[in-house]
C-alpha cells in the first residue's frame, strides 16, 4: 500500500468519526497550546526584563558597602560607612576601564510645595550620574561643578514627584520647594523612565549635588554607593577587577581580609536575571508539557477504543487484502494525523493565548520558531508512541475472529 492510499484511508476513517477525532485532538490542542503560550510568555518577560535592565544605565558598575551581617543582625553601622568621596576620586584617577564615576548619597524625607507634600528619596550625585543612569533632562538644566562645590540648594525632580506636587505634566522649573524644611530651587525636570525590572518606580526621585545632600540633608561624611560606567560591555569584567583592586588598596585591606564593599555590574545582573527567567520558562514549559503527555495518553486511550470498536472493520479490511502491516500503518497514520493536526491547532490556539496573556501582562509574549518546530516534533513522536500499541493490537487480530466479533 503506498503512502497516498494510506493517508486517504486514514483520513476517511477519521472523517467518519469527526466528533471523536476532534475530542481526541482536544487533549493535544490544549497541551501544545499551553506549552507554546508558556514558552512565549516566558520568553516575552525575559526580553522585557532584559530591556529594562539595559535601560537602567550604560554598562553600569555599582559599588555598595558590604554590610556585615550575622544571623540577620547588622554588626554595627560602621560597615555601611566604608565608602568615601575619596574612593570616587581614586576610581576617576586610576580606573582605565571606567568612563564615568559618580557618588550616590541618599536621604529620604518629606518634600513640600505650598499645601502639597510627598515622601521621596533625594539622591546626591555628581554630573556624570545622568550619563551613567541614562537619564535625560526634559526641561531646565542639570547642576554644575560650582553648585557642587558650593553645596547649592538646587534640585532636579523626577516625573512622579512633579505629578505629586504640581500635577501631571506641569513644568515647575524656577519654583521653590522645601525638602526636610530646607528651601531648594528647582532647576530641572527629568524625562520619565517608567518602572524598573524590579517593579520600582524610577521617576520617584529628586537629584541634588552630593555635597548638598551629604552635608545639609543627611549630615554624614560617607557616601552610600558609587555608580560608574565601564567603557564598553566587554570591559565590564575588567572594570570590576580594577575597582576591587583600587578600593582594596585605598581601604588598606589586608590580603586575608574580605572586601568591605561589593561590586556588581549590569552585565552580570543581566546574566543572572536571564538564567533565572530561563529556568522559569523551562519550568512553565515542563508543567505545560505534562498536559501534552496527558493529551498523548488520551490519543492512546481513544485508539484502543477505536480498535475494539472497529474490530469488524479490521476483519473486513483483512479479508479484502489488508495485511497486518497495512492495518498497523493505518492506525498509526490515524494517530499521527490526529496528533499533528492537534499540534497545528494547538500552535494557533497557543499563539492567540500568548497574545492575550501578553496584552494582559503588558509584556509581549514572543512565540519562537524553535518552540513551534519542537511542538510538531513532539506531536509526531506522541502520535507514533501512543499509536503503536493500539495499532499493533489491531494488526495482530485474526481475520475470522475479527469478522465474527460482536
Amino acid at each position: 500500500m503506498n503512502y497516498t492510499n494510506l493517508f486517504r484511508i486514514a483520513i476517511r476513517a477519521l472523517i467518519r468519526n469527526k466528533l471523536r477525532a476532534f475530542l481526541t485532538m482536544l487533549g493535544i490542542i490544549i497541551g501544545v497550546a499551553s506549552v507554546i503560550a508558556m514558552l512565549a510568555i516566558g520568553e516575552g518577560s525575559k526580553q522585557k526584563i532584559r530591556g529594562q535592565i539595559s535601560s537602567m544605565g550604560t554598562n553600569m558598575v555599582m559599588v555598595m558597602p558590604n554590610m556585615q551581617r550575622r544571623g540577620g543582625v547588622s554588626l554595627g553601622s560602621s560597615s555601611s560607612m566604608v565608602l568615601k568621596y575619596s574612593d570616587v576620586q581614586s576610581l576617576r584617577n586610576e580606573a582605565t576601564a571606567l568612563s564615568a564615576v559618580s557618588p550616590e548619597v541618599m536621604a529620604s524625607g518629606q518634600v513640600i510645595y505650598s499645601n502639597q507634600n510627598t515622601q521621596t528619596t533625594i539622591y546626591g550625585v555628581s554630573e556624570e550620574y545622568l550619563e551613567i543612569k541614562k537619564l535625560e533632562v526634559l526641561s531646565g538644566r542639570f547642576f554644575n561643578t560650582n553648585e557642587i562645590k558650593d553645596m547649592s540648594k538646587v534640585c532636579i525632580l523626577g516625573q512622579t514627584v512633579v505629578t505629586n506636587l504640581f500635577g501631571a505634566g506641569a513644568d515647575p522649573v524656577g519654583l521653590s520647594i522645601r525638602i526636610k524644611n530646607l528651601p531648594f530651587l528647582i532647576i530641572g525636570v527629568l524625562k520619565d523612565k517608567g518602572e524598573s525590572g524590579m517593579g520600582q518606580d524610577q521617576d520617584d526621585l529628586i537629584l541634588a549635588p552630593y555635597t548638598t545632600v551629604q552635608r545639609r540633608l543627611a549630615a554624614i561624611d560617607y557616601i552610600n554607593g558609587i555608580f560608574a560606567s565601564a567603557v564598553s560591555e566587554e570591559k565590564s569584567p575588567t572594570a570590576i577587577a580594577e575597582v576591587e583592586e583600587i578600593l582594596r588598596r585605598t581601604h588598606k585591606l589586608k590580603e586575608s581580609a574580605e572586601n568591605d564593599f561589593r561590586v556588581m555590574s549590569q552585565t552580570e545582573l543581566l546574566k543572572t536575571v536571564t538564567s533565572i527567567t530561563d529556568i522559569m520558562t523551562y519550568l512553565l514549559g515542563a508543567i505545560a508539557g505534562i498536559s501534552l503527555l496527558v493529551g498523548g495518553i488520551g490519543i492512546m486511550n481513544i485508539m484502543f477504543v477505536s480498535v475494539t470498536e472497529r474490530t469488524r472493520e479490521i476483519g473486513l479490511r483483512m479479508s479484502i487484502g489488508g495485511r497486518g502491516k497495512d492495518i498497523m500503518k493505518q492506525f498509526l497514520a490515524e494517530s499521527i494525523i490526529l496528533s499533528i493536526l492537534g499540534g497545528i491547532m494547538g500552535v494557533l490556539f497557543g499563539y492567540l493565548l500568548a497574545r492575550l496573556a501578553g496584552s494582559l501582562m503588558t509584556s509581549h509574549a514572543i512565540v519562537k520558531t524553535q518552540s513551534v518546530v519542537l511542538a510538531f516534533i513532539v506531536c509526531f513522536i506522541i502520535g507514533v508512541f501512543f499509536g503503536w500499541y493500539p495499532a499493533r493490537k489491531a494488526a495482530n487480530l485474526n481475520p475470522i475472529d475479527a469478522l465474527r466479533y460482536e
Partner: protein
Amino acid sequence: MNNSIIEIKSLRKDYHVGEVTVHALRGVDLKIHEGEFVAIMGASGSGKSTMLNILGCLDKPTYGDYLLDGVNVNTMNNDALARFRNKKLGFVFQSYNLLARTTALENVELPLFYNPNVRSRERKESALRALEAVGLSDRMHHMPNQLSGGQQQRVAIARSLVNDPVLILADEPTGNLDTRTSFEIMELFQDLNDKGRTIVYVTHETDIARFATRNVTFRDGKIQRESNVSERLDAREILKTMPVEAIEEFD
C-alpha cells in the same frame, strides 16, 4: 470447464476450545472447476462456514492440501495470503460488512486501496463499473444506512467484483433478505456466472440452492452428497412471474 480452480484433498479442521477438540471438518475432498456455480448446503454446525473460510484463505486447515488456482495455499505466509485474497478472491457476507458512514462508491473502492498497482483514477473507474454491474450506479453517493438490505448486499457484491477475482465466495448472502430480494441477488449471481465468474455460496434454503449448477451437502464435517442441479431455476424468469411488492425500492 476443465480447469479446476479449487482442489481439496482429505482436508481437516479442528478447533480447540479449552479441553475439548471440535472436529469441524473431518476429511473433505472437493474439486471446483472454473465457471462453476456451487451451492454448499447442510445443517447448522455441519462445517459450511468453516469450509468457506478455508476456501477464502481466511483460515488454515489443520490437515490436508488446498490448491487454489494452482497454488498450494498451505505454504503461504499471512502477508502472501492477504495478497492472494486481494487479487484472486471476492467475499460476500451475510451481514454485508459495509463500512458505516462511507458511500457505496468508497466501499466498493476499498479492496483496490490494498493493491499498490491500481492508480487512483483506475480505482474510481473500476468501482463505478462494478456498481453499474450490480445496477446501483445511481446510488454511488449513498451511505449504507440510506440503502435497503438488498441494495447493501449488491454494494457488497460490487465490492467483491471490483478486483476481478477468479472466485467469489458468499456465506449465506441471502440470509438476511426476503424472498424476492434473495431472488434478485441470485439473478445477479447467475448473470455473473453466465459471464464466466466462478461462484461458491453457502445457503440453508433448498430453493436458493437450486439456482446453482451444483450442490454440495455437508453433514458433520464431511461431504454427504454432491449432485448436479437437474432442474436449475432461472432467477430472471421467476422474478417476472412474481408480483412486485409495495415495500420494494423507492426511487
